[in-house]
């Protein structure tokens, strides 16, 4: 449906720039979308922010994400202050008052540097979102191709499996797996995951968010399979692998790119929810989700501890969602019509993803 080739069709290439390939045209369309470009820049800034974690930790904060400073004193503008008061109240944001130490204050009665944790926690959150996005998309594409190409009972089995996975309450099942394997880890045949490792939430997210990507891809493969170029390829003697990866996959590329961006956003929200409830990322690792649940206990006195990681999640997810929408508009120009229907133009039948 979203064949990139279609954009090169002279009837639809709106600029009359016939010499450009579909990806080039899509890039141009994307760059014209100011909002999407702005949020893409924001997303890169967030990635740069979390990648800079070791630099900040070593050269500015002089501490690690899990180092406690319970009994330490801090020199702030010539005054000496306790990192954690005897009542267990952590110090608030110091900004540059202590040369960047405790920039956002301490996280709890343990007196860990909130800024350092925010940067390292963001690494965990983004890493989980990204890696589970890769796994989810890979599984979804393989299953979608198999189901859509072979049809018949293969499709029936895959479609039913996806239906069941889809109808499960994801968060509850995630909690169940997270808690049941918190101590001993997971062992399914050759797959072994240590208890408390961040691969457990990745495993949970990858499996249970797969249907959200696999179902639309399967649908698209089913409709692509009807097209003449597939028939032509089969007539030329192409085998299943050749048809699936040589003919169908390139036509899915734009859908995959869009879903990948949106999937990372959803994964990060899910990871945060799991970690917030204590069933995702396990201590001493931190993620934005676990930071919110720690910070929430001090909401009255230090509201920023819960709010800042939340804002970080929101900004990341928002930028991914907007970039994803922008990519969809750029790669499939017809969808722009239905997103910005100014005069009540209806969605084309079956065009919604």
């Amino acid at each position, binding site marked *: 449906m979203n064949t990139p080739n279609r954009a090169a069709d002279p009837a639809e290439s709106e600029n009359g720039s016939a010499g450009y390939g579909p990806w080039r045209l899509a890039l141009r369309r994307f760059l014209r979308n100011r909002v999407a470009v702005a949020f893409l820049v924001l997303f890169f800034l967030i990635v740069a922010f979390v990648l800079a974690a070791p630099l900040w930790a070593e050269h500015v904060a002089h501490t690690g994400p899990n180092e406690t400073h319970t009994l330490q004193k801090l020199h702030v503008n010539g005054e000496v202050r306790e990192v954690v008061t005897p009542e267990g109240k952590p110090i608030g944001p110091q900004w540059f008052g202590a040369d960047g130490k405790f920039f956002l204050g301490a996280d709890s009665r343990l007196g860990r540097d909130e800024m350092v944790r925010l940067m390292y926690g963001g690494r965990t959150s983004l890493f989980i979102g990204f890696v589970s996005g890769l796994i989810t998309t890979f599984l979804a594409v393989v299953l979608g191709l198999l189901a859509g190409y072979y049809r018949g009972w293969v499709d029936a089995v895959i479609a039913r499996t996806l239906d069941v996975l889809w109808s499960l309450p994801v968060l*509850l099942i995630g909690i169940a797996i997270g808690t049941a394997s918190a101590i001993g*880890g997971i062992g399914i045949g050759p797959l072994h995951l240590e208890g408390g490792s961040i691969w457990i939430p990745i495993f949970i997210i990858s499996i249970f968010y797969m249907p959200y990507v696999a179902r639309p891809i399967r649908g698209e493969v089913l409709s692509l399979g009807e097209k003449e170029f597939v028939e032509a390829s089969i007539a030329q003697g192409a085998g299943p692998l050749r048809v699936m990866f040589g003919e169908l996959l390139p036509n899915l590329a734009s859908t995959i790119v869009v879903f990948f961006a949106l999937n990372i956003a959803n994964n990060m929200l899910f990871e945060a929810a799991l970690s917030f*409830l204590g069933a995702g990322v396990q201590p001493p690792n931190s993620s934005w989700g676990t930071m919110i649940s720690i910070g*929430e206990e001090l909401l009255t006195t230090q509201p920023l501890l819960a709010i800042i990681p939340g804002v970080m999640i929101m900004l990341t997810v928002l930028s991914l969602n907007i970039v994803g929408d922008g990519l969809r508009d750029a790669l499939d120009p017809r969808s722009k019509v239905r997103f910005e229907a100014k005069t*009540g133009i209806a969605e084309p039948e079956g065009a919604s993803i």
Partner: protein
Amino acid sequence: MLRFIARRLVGMVLVLFVVSLIVFLIFNVIPNSPPAQRLAGKNATPTLVKSIEEEWGFDESLPKQYVTMMKKVFTGELIQYSPRVPVDDRIKEGIPATLSLSIGAGIIWLAFGLLLGYLAAIRAGGWLDRTLTGVAVAGISIPVFLLAPVLIYFLTYKLEIFPNGGYVGWTEDPWEWLQHMILPWFTLAVLSIGFYSRVLRSNMLDVMNEDYVRTARAKGLSERKVMSRHVLRNSLIPITTLFGLDFGATIAGTAIITEVLFNIEGIGLYAAESIGKLELPPIMGITLYGAFFVVFINALVDIAYAYLDPRVRLGSTAR
């Protein structure tokens, strides 16, 4: 219609079986530690572990273990071990709070979502329409665990408008109940309002192009009547489905987090406490009940959909 219902119910039973199997695998097969040890909890004595192992028959074959587990959950024999309380009792205690939260929030998001979506559709392209697009994108990006702390901090601690968390039964004191629920309701609902208004809007724009709408206009009905009688009514059918699915998903999902954030003593808070203590029996019970509830609601939704839209049960769009 009866045949459709029968077919759907058979499908539901099959899915329930598969779901119970998945839950069994999650608790008894996938994890990599002795199951009795896990069920007993963090600080269990060896005697307790031993007795649990016998009680649950962990030395027997997997099918037998499956039967034992299902029997325990559905006859209410499931108990948590520290302190020793039947899981069912705790779940029953939590039901009123959980339902108050989810139903109230559901009503709010449906009412506002439909109202705004209707207004946006009849003035497609207007300022309300464009604002709602923004709200919808923000809605899917703002997590409850950001919205709730912000609202609690400003409205509860700073302005002291709302009471600080907790739950008061509505039979005890309806006014207190309302005051305690407004903020959680709003938190849970606001994120869906944008989305629902977008869905209704796009449904209505779709329906406006249908032949029967042209017919209605041609026979001289007023624009208002065309909109409310013909366009809106037909656009509501897909919303019924969506709402059913989301309602189930909310109870078994976001409501848990909302209960924790607002300290509402419902099933979700019970689940969260059990996670903290690594206590598995409550989580086993809640997961199974929750998954069954969701599957059941999904079947009901399908049946309602078939009832509302005859095209489905007559098979033209049936799977």
